[in-house]
């Protein structure tokens, strides 16, 4: 299964993966609108602790604890085999956050309900937006 490989030795802490992620997961698909109007949350998070920096996102565990913890089947494995959350049914109980061993699920909002936000490896793209945006090959899309 192809995944986003995190090459921390190449990460330059530029946040462009986050920007690309926000844009890809916005309604408008417009970078400025996505950030300024839609307030989209990024699925990946860039961490920094000099000199380390890296963008961390869902590792799509084979044995995903978040799927087990989900109280109504919102967290599931899609046809590609990736762990994704059904935004229509998620109620934001944060049980997935409680068990995610990588700490990569974020708290978002979905109308009245909370919404777990996580990497869905861009189902509409052949290469995830963050990988494409990374200027230094710190994120690569490959078999892990």
């Amino acid at each position, binding site marked *: 299964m192809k*995944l986003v*490989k*995190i090459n*921390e030795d190449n990460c330059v802490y530029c946040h462009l993966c986050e920007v690309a992620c926000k844009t890809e997961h916005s309604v408008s698909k417009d970078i400025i609108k996505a950030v300024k109007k839609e307030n989209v949350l990024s699925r990946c*998070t860039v*961490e*920094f*602790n000099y000199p*380390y*920096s*890296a963008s*961390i996102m869902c*590792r799509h*565990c*084979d*044995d995903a*604890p*978040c799927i*087990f*913890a989900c*109280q*109504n*089947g*919102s967290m599931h494995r899609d046809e590609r085999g990736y762990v994704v959350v059904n935004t*229509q*049914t*998620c*109620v*934001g*109980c*944060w*049980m*997935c*956050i*409680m*068990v*995610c*061993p*990588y*700490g990569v*699920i*974020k*708290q978002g909002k979905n109308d*009245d*309900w*909370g919404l777990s936000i996580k990497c869905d490896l861009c189902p509409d793209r052949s290469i995830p937006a963050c990988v494409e945006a990374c200027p230094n090959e710190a994120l690569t899309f490959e078999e*892990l």
Partner: protein
Amino acid sequence: MKYVIIGNSVAGINAATAIRQNDTQGEILIISDEQTRPYSRPLLPNWVIGEVSFSEERMFYRRNDFFDKNNIQTLLGQTVEKVDTKQKTVILSNKENINYDKLIIASGANAIMPKNITGIDLDGVYTLTNIKGAKKLKEDLVKINSIVIVGAGLIGTKMAYDLSKIGKKVVLVELAKRVLFPALDDYAAVLIQEQLKLSGVDIILNDSVVELDGDKTVSQVTLSSGKKILCDACLLSVGVAPNVAFVDQNIKLDRGIVVDDYLKACDDCYAAGDVASIYDIVVNVRRPIPILPLAAREGYIAGLNASGHEVKFGGGFAMNSIEIGKVGFISMGLIESDTDEVLEYKKDDKYRKFIIRDNKLIGVILVNNVEKAGMFNWMIEKKFDVSWIKDTFLNNDFGWKYFDKAFRVLRLDRKLQR
């Protein structure tokens, strides 16, 4: 091969999923006394106050096509009266016998009805662990203006908050000195109590209900302190007890069904979910831990083992996630200790607490900054040596950045599987 699963909820569904992954041919039958599609039990409080309805997909545990897609038979609305593990038969209350090759008991737990409260049989006394109890409460809700909730556990607390949100007068009575006693320590509980009070909930601590009075319907609650509270209804949420009435003598019981490391109760019979007494890796005892993530995993492992695998279940530990008003918290494992190393960070409504024993993390409370909680969960589960990294736990920006590079790379490259 015929698999029979008693219980149509989290453990049962996951057991069926696991069996179907391994055995595409075998017959799978799920028996449940409930008539509904498997639904999300934690959402019942929301359903009661009308935030969500059964017409919405989010109310259900699996999508509508789940049984068809996985070729699972169901027998709904039937109560299991007896399990005969010698004959490998399940006897239903309508005296029908169902034979099985493998049995998985995932019958869950029911609300405890305390025997020492008089007047518990009156109308207007509710419980909220299944659809039956919830339905009753929902139907009567229009008539109820004030309600006493007995037991400030997860259900009690959430219900108290939800009911006061829709304008009911709520009194929350708790025997212990704080709300959410087993899940939170004093500091965190105060944060929750503040939220409850803000939304209008009266909290009475260190007290218990001894008597319910009323003419057919509850109208007054008497506490052991002698205090009397006028009300229209009383919700009992003092805990749950495993549903084990139907098992035979081959299946050993303590508080729940005793299982081995492979979740086996006896030959060809497995137990999973709230009904099973499993190993608590934090407090080192066997006991039922009635929480959803564990039920799901147990069900899945029981299903795997029933269909020919030998997967060990390493045990679990208590963990809770709840949001009351503006305060969201996650707690895991032990929450208080006088004898272990305790790390604490307190600032306004931010709270982080870690309990460490022998350089292993055994308990965590996170309030209002919970996104990395799962990493601690992993450390507890894996009995990870935290001596070299524990100093960073209290940082609000805790994350991968504090790990040793080699370890981090291995983990993020999925070379070190969870």
